[in-house]
């Protein structure tokens, strides 16, 4: 071999080594390595407490703003800005806030910052997506009509710099539980000057402040050094890396480019425990899945309907589906709420209606046939853009095999199409529905969905006894007393089954080597306490 040839080979080999080195060097980012890298998604709108209502934006907004309470990992409300909250009837509240809290623009948080934010959120022309959360407050109906003439709710009054009063339409213990939730956080005066610009560059009073938001790429937040609250940031900041697919996030987690991935993609559910070892975390969260069967459908009204719904519920082998399809990432339902919520019971009378019992299912179905013979096909509609096809087909099969009737899952391409049919009440079949807790309260899983005229009462369910029980639960003075009444209310639902509870979600998450993170009641990481 000649010298020239050798030189050539050496040059090529050298070039290869260098280019490999360049590639490898670009793999790990070094500049922001102090920040904890977690998965997120591009917020749907600007980061504003009263409008951000989806997961991607919510997880960031909640770090930037702190309300009267904050929720710890178990979902218990802990005092944050609240100094004193007085009420004797769960209807009229006098709220005193702590002094000395500041927004990151230097202005002090005062009582009017809460009142202004809530009024802003409820006023229709502002088109804030969280509008409905202000519905319990007196005067909401006037500001939330199509063309409102007043801009402020009569139920809100600023008393002095640190005190304001709230009057509700009717007693609601749930209102207090929800006061840590995003729309009830305060907004600084600067927000109302140009809300759009504010949404791009929010100024909050939370444990973190926004450093950069690179659209569709990432958002970095760093600790707010002046934060006086208990839930201070225990890390040097968080980088929310936006993914459109969890599979990509999982690849990053495996290669150490991501510190926390809060949801393992379906494709990796079979292998993640082996891949990650003790870096895998499982935690039940406040999210459930149901099959809703409106009473207005043929054969599902009155006593006949109740029997048929009970039969269908008992005809579904939840355990088998959760094991086979979801690899244990779902837990069969025990009631209409979720097991991670404070006050969850799990042993309510009537719970057996949610257990697989083919013999009883057939007997109940025959009883219903005695009232009016069954005809037609039982169809469960679902959106096919969210991974729901497999289980609806399985549930339909289980019903078909047990009751010996024609049953099938039917696909609607997108979530928005399904929602449109449900909202318009034009859907002519049973359909899948899910609920995710906005704040840790069982009542939040019952009231909007099952109370007569509730904002999300897709089934059109109406039962005065149930409504009365919910009102009774709302007027209790202690959380424990209210849990008991919530249980009684749920027994009514367990008999009527306006929706058939299927399962609660279990979040399967993973962390990078050396990272400590816990998953909270809502399925999100306990961001403030992640360390690495």
């Amino acid at each position, binding site marked *: 071999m000649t010298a020239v040839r050798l030189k050539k080979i050496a040059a090529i080999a050298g070039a290869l080594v260098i280019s*490999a080195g*360049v*590639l*490898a060097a*670009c*793999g790990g*980012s070094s500049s922001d390595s102090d920040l904890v890298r977690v998965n997120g998604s*591009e*917020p*749907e*709108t*600007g980061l504003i407490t009263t409008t951000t*209502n*989806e*997961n991607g934006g919510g997880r960031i907004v909640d770090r930037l703003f702190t309300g009267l309470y904050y929720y710890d990992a178990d979902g218990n409300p802990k005092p944050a800005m609240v100094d004193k909250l007085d009420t004797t009837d769960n209807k009229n509240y006098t709220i005193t806030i702590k002094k000395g809290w500041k927004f990151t623009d230097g202005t002090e948080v005062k009582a009017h910052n809460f009142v202004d934010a809530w009024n802003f959120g409820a006023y*229709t*022309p502002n*088109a*804030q*997506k969280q*509008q*409905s959360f202000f519905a319990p407050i007196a005067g909401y109906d006037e500001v*939330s*009509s*199509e063309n409102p003439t007043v801009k402020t709710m009569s139920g809100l009054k600023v008393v002095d710099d640190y005190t304001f009063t709230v009057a509700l339409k009717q007693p609601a213990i749930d209102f207090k539980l929800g006061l840590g939730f995003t729309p009830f956080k305060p907004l600084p005066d600067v927000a109302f000057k140009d809300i*759009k610009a504010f949404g791009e560059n929010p100024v909050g009073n939370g444990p973190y402040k926004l450093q950069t938001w*690179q*659209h*569709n*790429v*990432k958002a970095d937040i760093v600790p707010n050094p002046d934060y006086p609250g208990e839930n201070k940031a225990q890390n040097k900041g968080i980088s929310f*890396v*936006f*993914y*459109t*697919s969890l*599979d*990509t996030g999982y*690849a*990053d987690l*495996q*290669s150490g*480019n991501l510190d926390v991935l809060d949801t393992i993609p379906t494709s990796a559910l079979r292998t993640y425990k082996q891949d990650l070892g003790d870096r895998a975390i499982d935690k039940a969260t406040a999210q459930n899945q149901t099959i809703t069967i409106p009473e207005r459908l043929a054969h599902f009204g009155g006593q006949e309907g109740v029997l048929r719904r009970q039969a269908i519920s008992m005809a579904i082998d939840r355990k088998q589906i959760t094991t086979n399809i979801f690899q244990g990432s779902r837990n069969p339902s025990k009631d209409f709420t979720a097991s991670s919520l404070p006050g969850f019971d799990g042993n309510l009378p009537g719970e057996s209606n949610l257990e697989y019992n083919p013999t009883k299912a057939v007997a109940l179905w025959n009883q219903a046939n005695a009232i009016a013979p069954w005809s037609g096909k039982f169809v469960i509609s679902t959106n096919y*853009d969210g991974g729901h096809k497999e289980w609806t087909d399985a549930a339909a099969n289980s019903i078909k095999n047990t009751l010996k009737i024609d049953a099938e899952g039917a696909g609607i*391409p*997108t*979530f*928005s*199409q399904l*929602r*449109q049919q449900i*909202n318009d009440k034009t859907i002519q079949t049973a359909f899948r*529905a*899910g*609920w*995710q807790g*906005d704040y840790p309260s069982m009542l939040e899983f019952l009231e*909007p969905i099952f109370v007569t005229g509730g*904002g*999300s009462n897709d089934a059109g369910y109406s039962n005065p006894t149930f409504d009365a029980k919910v009102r009774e639960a709302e007027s209790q003075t202690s959380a424990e007393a209210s849990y008991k009444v919530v249980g009684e209310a749920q027994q009514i639902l367990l008999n009527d089954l306006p929706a058939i509870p299927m399962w609660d979600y279990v979040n399967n998450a993973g962390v990078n080597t050396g990272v400590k993170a816990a998953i909270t009641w809502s399925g999100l990481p306990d961001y403030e306490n992640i360390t690495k």
Partner: protein
Amino acid sequence: MVWYTIRRILQLIPVFFGATLLLYFMVYKLPGDPTAALGGGRPLTEAVRNQIREQYHLNDNFFTQYWLYLKGIFTFDFGTSFSGRPVLDVMQQAFPVTIRLAIMALIFEAVFGIVFGVIAGMRKGGWFDSTVLVISLIVIAIPIFVIGFIAQFVIGVKWGLAPVTVGGNDGIANLVLPAIVLASGSFAYVLRLTRSSVAENATADHVRTATAKGLGRPRVVSVHILRNSLIPVVTFLGADLGALMAGAVVTEGIFNINGIGQTVFRSVQIGEAPTVVSIVTVLVLIYLIANLAVDLLYAVIDPRIRYA
């Protein structure tokens, strides 16, 4: 030549209007109310939904909506996405990334496709030719997302030689692997086109004459064979630039690259007409301009092809 160019450029105008009208109509006809899913599981109040529909002119009829869109374009106002960002901003962020990715892919497939194609064509039937043929067949047969995931897992996750995902670090070095993945499908076509074209031209009379005249092999190959063989290859590459930009949906998804592929995908899902129509229209224009460039290039490569 000049008139030909001008005529071709003027043709872009009806294409532009036709494409936007058609696209707008298709997005308009997408089933489902875009505001229905905005509230997640909890529906928005009727009043707020109406307010939003009003803001985005969703209550207007198709022609009013399309007219408002067109009117905006002439003042470089491409409308607003549902997130409140101007579509122009969205495009300015997404296009450079995808263009970079597509051009890199184009260079990879052109350089490797032509070099390997020439070698294979010159040594038709040899071991190199057979090996390359088999490999190109396999590459064509495997869907690009499979190649992408495997490359990501093996080269990125297991060997750590390339970034697993790109995210915001979309410099040229980080785009090498995604560009190779994106190029892989077309690379095989370029290779096969070049190979058969070269093999055919290698036995042509003028090549034999050139060799007989005593010209060196490099000159024979580069001037007498390659020049004639490149016409079909350049045609393919020109058309492929447009295809690469549109095909980036898959590659961008796998490597989490924030380009137009991802943006269009997201926008179609939520029924966001201004974004989809604006981006796809620009894609159509790029496609047309690339084709125009190819037609003009013919004259350079082969002087026999000249337009009046």
